[in-house]
């Protein structure tokens, strides 16, 4: 199993450009998440999904959109990129929403907006 994979690994955007960060998991997990991590900080939840066709906002959703058409894929869309969106983005998945369950993280996408 590859686990959680993310593409691209690095990207530089100009202000106002758009892009989609890809996330795929092969563990048949229903729950998927997008986090951002700013330098020296913990992770903040952007959006999450509890299954195909169901998404919900996290702590910092402004400027982002998501979709979940399949169990495997959970892309994150940035519209009109801003310097404040410079960050490292992590996708994660879990089998259930039980508090003690493990979240499995991808390797991250490092995004710079200039």
């Amino acid at each position, binding site marked *: 199993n590859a686990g959680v994979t993310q593409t691209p690994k690095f990207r530089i955007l100009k202000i106002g450009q758009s892009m989609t960060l890809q996330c795929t998991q092969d563990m048949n997990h229903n729950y998927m998440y997008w986090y951002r991590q700013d330098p020296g900080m*913990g992770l903040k939840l952007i959006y999450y999904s509890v299954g195909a066709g169901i998404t919900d906002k996290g702590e910092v959703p402004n400027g982002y959109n998501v979709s979940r058409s399949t169990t495997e894929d959970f892309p994150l869309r940035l519209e009109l990129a801003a310097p404040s969106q410079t960050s490292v983005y992590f996708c994660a998945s879990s089998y259930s*929403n039980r508090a*003690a369950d493990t979240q499995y993280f991808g390797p991250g996408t490092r995004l710079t907006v200039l």
Partner: protein
Amino acid sequence: TQLLEQSPQFLSIQEGENLTVYCNSSSVFSSLQWYRQEPGEGPVLLVTVVTGGEVKKLKRLTFQFGDARKDSSLHITAAQPGDTGLYLCAVHKETSGSRLTFGEGTQLTVNP
């Protein structure tokens, strides 16, 4: 106000030393998790603690959940350079379902 306060924020020690890092809150949690994140990678789960006063050991790492389930500590014995990384604690807020909330982490550097 952060839900989880981790301390210290940064810690730089020599190989072979012992250390303890802390994760504190004023809220009660049903469980608490510790993750380690190495440079350029995503966090990886180390342990989940669920019972007040619980102690779990993972080789040279000892995790303890506070009796009141509001705080936790991570103790590393005889630290090695391979222990270098960002240590994050995380909890599920009771009203947030599947949503994890992370502390800001302790950045540990173990020098050879």
